[in-house]
């Protein structure tokens, strides 16, 4: 799992937030380039990207754990 926190552009600040909120996954610090590339999605937004780099699922808003788990399982199987 890789995070993007587009709101926080300062490394120190992000580290502080992640420590406080107990966020374990590696997260990109927000930058103009990232915001432009991904078009400032509302939070939460999720993308499932397969092992070749293709976007396979996209959710604006929380689709629920079951949907995410099913999608991940499907594309992890595709790697095997």
């Amino acid at each position: 799992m890789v995070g993007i926190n587009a709101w926080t552009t300062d490394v120190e600040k992000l580290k502080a937030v992640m420590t406080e909120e107990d966020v374990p996954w590696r997260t990109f610090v927000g930058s103009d380039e990232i915001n432009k590339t991904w078009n400032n999605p509302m939070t939460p937004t999720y993308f499932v990207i397969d092992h070749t780099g293709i976007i396979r699922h996209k959710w604006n808003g929380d689709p629920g754990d079951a949907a995410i788990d099913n999608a991940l399982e499907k594309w992890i199987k595709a790697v095997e």
Partner: protein
Amino acid sequence: MSVAIRWISTGIVFAAAGAVAETPAEKFAALSKQFRPDSAWLRDAETDLERREGLEKYATYAPRFLALVEKHADDPIALKALRQAIQIVGSRDSGALQVWQMNEAEFPKGVTDGSAKRIVVLLLRDYLMSDALEPICDRMRYQYRLEVENALRGMLEKNPHRQVKGAACLALAQFLHDKLRMANLADDRPELRERYAAVFGANYLPELRHRRDSGLASEIEALFERAAVEFTDVKVRAGVVGEIAKLELYKIRKLSVGKPAPATEGVDQNGESFKLSDYRGKVVLLYFWSEF
């Protein structure tokens, strides 16, 4: 003697009625004043019952504002009252979805007073050529009722003013895009299917799905394209039509299922550089989050 008294009392009654006869503007102001405290129903409610009752009371204002529109069609307040009715219908529906999410009991019944339909009929019949419809397009974009599509299409095709056409084109694209998102989200969440049926009726989701299967995504893309090309410089409340439409097209074309994830490079919370492509060979869940 008794006849004279009857005449006098009748005269007094008529005089009294004349004294309280209100102009359309006064009626609109009076109704708006009554509406104001009731419009804070969600903020003020503390229990399930208060939420349900507050919502149901709030919803009754839509037909009341529409009655003003119908009675005083040529008065300047008519368009204001129509805009108010549109806002109430939208808030009533989004409020209902929220109450369904929040409550454990006391679920509100879906409102079937036909207000959305009335709004569309009135707009197309009496205001289609108006140059003051941009704020109405703006409000309609957030509506849930599918009838609203006809109003937006009508304005796009028949209104002679470029600003209105541009606003309608963009609003229509966004309206349909939101509906597509609702259909997609409901695929994964059974509680949403139940909720949509309760609030909008049993046919709502099936109709959205039917549109999705009949090429809704392409329709949406074509509308954004048209907005970007034909109405590039039109100014709306949210910004400039061309810019807004181009951003949406970028998302649709580059950031959608089946497309390669765009190259992403940056710095992590420890100050170390890394790229999304470093994870090639693994499945990645990319999660946009914020601490808010």
